[in-house]
């Protein structure tokens, strides 16, 4: 089996060209799309950051964490508290505010980085106990920590404004910030995964005991993956908050529901595939928006059907269960959409159609 492979240099330039091409498309979209479509477009990138970061933890390292919403929440609150102006904060905190929080102020980029770092620190702290567990226990414990931080956000009135949440967050998450961060996330995580460290993480996923026996410090590597994943989850939290413009610690906004959404994205795209995670995020964002119609009143053969709230999540979870039962590998499986694979697949396709033509 002799395979012609592209040289690394060609692949590098192809990738650069591809990024420029996408950039151009985004520029076009930014100019000509209406507001609603633009918001969905940006949401795809935000979901993409969430999915790629969760995929690093769950899909590549095989640490089945359900704490992603917790990291997103930490990032969202940290960043929003930094970008909100002191006057706005003073206005919206009905129960008083810690003076040091009121004074904090930073630009969007710094705030996003700070959100990522806060989430990473949180992950580092909970990683010590959580990663000592295995399998299901780890899943529940990480979910538990995410819930604890959400409950904390609901109660720490002078810091988070409690159940009222934060309002009037500036809508900084434009097309360039969101896609810029998506690019940064993918480049960072892909280059980690394509290094010796990435192989070690996959080895841990495949067989923890053998990985240990090969000289890999399993705990430290898992912690590293956990912390890096959490950093980007925090970043996505910041982007999400500055896209939503209001955040609150309800069960349905930044609770287990959000983790579940991100989980759907990566399972749909293929657990363990970075490009799959992005595809999954895009499909989820579009599908979820498209299903919004189900919750609006619509006419069905002349009969007026009232809007039914909850239909979206019902449909999505039904699709999800069906995917899990019949199509566990998802769209990409563990494969990546790389130049090599594209060539391989197109060759396969070509030979297949040739065979069909001959037959």
């Amino acid at each position, binding site marked *: 089996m002799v395979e012609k492979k592209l040289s690394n240099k060609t692949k590098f330039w192809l990738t650069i060209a591809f990024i420029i091409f996408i950039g151009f498309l985004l520029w076009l979209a930014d100019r000509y799309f209406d507001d609603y479509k633009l918001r969905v477009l940006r949401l795809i990138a935000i979901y993409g950051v969430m999915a790629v970061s969760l995929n690093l933890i769950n899909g590549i390292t095989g640490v*089945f964490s*359900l704490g992603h919403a917790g990291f997103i929440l930490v990032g969202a609150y940290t960043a929003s508290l930094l970008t909100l102006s002191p006057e706005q904060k003073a206005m919206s905190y009905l129960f008083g505010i810690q003076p040091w929080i009121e004074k904090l102020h930073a630009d969007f980029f710094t705030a996003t980085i700070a959100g990522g770092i806060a989430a990473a620190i949180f992950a580092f702290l909970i990683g010590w*106990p*959580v990663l*000592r*567990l295995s*399998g*299901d*226990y780890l*899943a*529940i*414990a990480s*979910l*538990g*920590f995410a*819930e*604890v931080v959400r*409950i*904390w956000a*609901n*109660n720490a009135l002078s810091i988070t404004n409690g159940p009222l949440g934060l309002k009037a967050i500036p809508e900084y998450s434009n097309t360039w910030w969101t896609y810029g961060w998506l690019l940064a996330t993918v480049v960072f995580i892909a280059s980690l995964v394509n290094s010796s460290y990435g192989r070690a993480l996959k080895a841990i996923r495949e067989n923890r*005991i053998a990985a240990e026996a090969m000289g890999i410090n399993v705990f430290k590597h898992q912690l590293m993956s956990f912390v890096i994943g959490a950093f980007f989850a925090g970043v996505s939290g910041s982007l999400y908050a500055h896209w939503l413009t209001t955040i609150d610690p309800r*069960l*349905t906004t930044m609770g*287990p*529901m959000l983790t*579940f959404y991100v*989980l*759907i994205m990566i*399972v749909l795209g293929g657990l363990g595939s970075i490009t799959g995670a992005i595809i999954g995020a895009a499909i989820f964002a579009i599908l979820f928006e498209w299903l919004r119609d189900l919750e609006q009143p619509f006419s069905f053969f002349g009969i007026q059907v009232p809007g*039914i*709230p*909850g*239909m*979206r*999540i*019902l449909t999505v*979870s*039904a699709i*999800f*269960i069906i995917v*899990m*039962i019949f199509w*566990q590998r998802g769209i990409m499986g563990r494969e990546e959409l790389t130049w090599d694979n594209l060539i391989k697949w197109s060759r396969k396709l070509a030979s297949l159609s040739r065979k069909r033509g001959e037959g």
Partner: protein
Amino acid sequence: MGYSPGTFFLQNLFNATMLGGLYALIAVGYTMVYGILRLINFAHGDIMMMGVYFAFYAATIIYAPPLLAAIIAIAGAAGLGFLIDRVAYKPLRNAPRISALITAIGMSFFLESFAVVVFGAIPKSFLDVFKDKTILNKVLLVGGARIPLLTFLVILITAGIFVVLFWIVYKTKIGMAMRAISMDIPTTSLMGINVDMVIGFTFALGSALAAASGVMWAMRFPNVYPYMGFMPGMKAFIAAVVGGIGSIPGAIIGGLLLGFIEIFAVAYFPNFSGYRDAFAFIILIIILLIKPSGILGKKAIEKV
């Protein structure tokens, strides 16, 4: 409020026993399923929620009396549990364990959103079930503490259910089959036992207990809404883990322990009442770190 420390303690003791018993009822379902399939049935708390809705609609639509409504709820939940296993989990018996776990999470959200769609997201009052509300308002005086009659009833019924449960698990044939497959599924199937039926029965039994717990839960905390099963479900799972997952007595001990800690922590440290839901998770994390196999669980040695 004019209570002496003794009565205050007594009051909380009853509340804690009741809450703990309700957690324990749900926890038993988790522990039985986990013991057999090594699967955290995330949807278990939501089955409890569905049971409560069944009772609610039985009472408000067909005007069933409370006892009949409860029986309908229990039967409906049992059927639902059986059905969920058949439809969603059975196809994944030989798949990686994580696939079944993910499906269970999906099932949980499916049931919640199903309830939103069919029953509506607006909380309903379970008290509407009772036309005659005198039984709800009766209060007994025990050692100076005012204990609602309902609390007594809930504790008694819970205890009764556990007696029946132990009888089923330890004295009947199906119970023996359940215990056998929790040890070794392939061997049990060689003995001519229909493993799928037994697993289905386990789901049905666990779901019935959850529904029973749910109905009593709703009598004491009458808010009925689609997400009401999430927190009790999580806490009950934690109770099962704390007690030693796979062990039914463990689930009961874990449930009671959780109920006691929650009630007494809030009673004596009212400042932390907002963190009430966080206690369970903190206990879980502590237990898992100190004794991951739980109070009554056996330590598993990983074979290399």
